[in-house]
């Protein structure tokens, strides 16, 4: 682990830029975040996810065919592939939003396998949609979700979560009035509320301006540095790929390339970028 940490920081030095002024990046957990949520393996460890023969069928269409992977704790995985390759489906299944038609999904933290009740507390998802209510304020949204996640002192927790994403001043404003970048930041605050050990991002950079993308990239490297397991689907080259440790390419629901837990992800990422450009030209 220490060796790869040094290697990781090289990539971070190459790819991440300075954070936009005035905005700090959020953390997955810190000792000041209230009492422990009963996790094993220390406050900063990530979840291990194992997919065994996962299939997902929608009607007659196979969205995923026999995906078998193991993603270890602390990995930062980029899922690449065109639209319809199964990236979103895989993320949804990992988030327990969709059930696989076949196959098994196991989560473990440290050495113990987790039951499904445990898991939802430990997963944060940032999806295509922002997953917050337009007709509530930023703070009300976070308080609501903090309560649903059974977090102690939801109001304080919500206020704390707004600060790292730079929305503290807009806490009492309706989400309806937010810009795209602010909405994305609130979505991330929501995902981080319960100090998750596994973060799922579905094309997080989509619709963000370059400054927003920089901030996102810096955020991801901070989270990764804290040991959170991250799985993110991405489309082409952007700022978010700085902390990636592994790249997996999906095509038509199958894994075609996997750089593996110790390999070089940039080969796969480059291949995916080339493929997408070629297809874009062909159309």
């Amino acid at each position: 682990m220490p060796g790869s940490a040094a290697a990781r920081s090289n990539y971070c030095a190459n790819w991440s830029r300075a954070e936009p002024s005035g905005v700090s990046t959020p953390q997955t957990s810190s000792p000041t975040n209230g009492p422990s949520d009963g996790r094993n393996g220390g406050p900063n460890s990530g979840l291990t996810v194992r997919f065994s023969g996962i299939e997902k069928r929608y009607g007659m269409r196979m969205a995923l065919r026999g995906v078998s992977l193991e993603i270890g704790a602390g990995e930062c995985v980029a899922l690449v592939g065109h639209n319809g390759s199964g990236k979103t489906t895989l993320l949804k299944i990992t988030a327990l939003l969709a059930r696989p038609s076949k196959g098994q999904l196991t989560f473990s933290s440290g050495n113990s396998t987790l039951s499904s009740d445990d898991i939802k507390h430990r997963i944060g998802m940032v999806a295509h949609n922002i997953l917050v209510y337009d007709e509530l304020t930023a703070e009300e949204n976070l308080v609501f979700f903090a309560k649903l996640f059974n977090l102690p002192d939801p109001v304080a927790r919500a206020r704390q979560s707004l600060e790292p994403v730079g929305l503290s001043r807009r806490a009492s404003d309706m989400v309806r009035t937010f810009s795209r970048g602010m909405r994305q930041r609130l979505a991330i605050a929501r995902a981080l509320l319960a100090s998750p050990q596994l973060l799922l991002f579905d094309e997080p950079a989509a619709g963000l301006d370059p400054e927003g993308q920089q901030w996102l990239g810096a955020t991801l490297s901070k989270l990764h540095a804290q040991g959170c397991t991250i799985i993110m689907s991405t489309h082409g080259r952007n700022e978010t790929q700085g902390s990636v440790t592994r790249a997996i390419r999906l095509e038509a629901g199958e894994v075609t390339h996997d750089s593996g837990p110790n390999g070089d992800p940039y080969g796969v990422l480059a291949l995916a970028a080339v493929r997408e450009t070629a297809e874009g030209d062909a159309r």
Partner: protein
Amino acid sequence: MSLVHATATILAKELRTEFRSRELLGTTIVFVLIVIVLFSFTFNPTSSESRRFGPGLLWLAFLFAGSLMLQPSFLREQTNDTLAALRLAPIDPFSILAGKMAANFLFLLLVELILLPVFAVLYNIAIFPILAPLVLVLALGTIGLATTGTVFSAVAAQARLRELLLPLLLLPVLAPVLIASTEATVGLLRDPSELSPVWLTFLTSFDVVFLTAAWLFGEYLLEE
């Protein structure tokens, strides 16, 4: 998090959202008023005629209003896919349905209670002496309306033509509630006023059957 606690949290959120804008409540109240006025042109609202036709028209108005007002219940959750956010939380999926059912019940009951005195004045019906049993009938009927309506709102949200679909699904299923509530109300307006045990038991059975069905099968509607 326990089912009751999660339901209460979701109920609070629904109430907060609605009472902030009050647009749904306001619109529904005006809609029922329009229906009540229009109905007045279809018969001669003398006291005895009103007692015969009034309850049926009132309940019909409530059913129509309900089938329109229950639409947004799940449609709202589609805007930013907040339904997924709810399903990500470690709560019993049924609490999502239950919270919305409770909220819809309260909204509908509020609309009905506001319109009851208006109706009484416009149609010359004395409701004060029978207020308590009348509210009981209202509540039992509204539970049936809110329960089935919320479930069907989740059904319609997944289909096309959902504005038209919800009344299409809801009204036939609620026909027994219409019959029972109307008859019970007519009984109350008779002289001497009588509260029919048959219809009350029937309404309660309807509510129990569909609450149980919603509990057993409702969550399937939330899955992907």
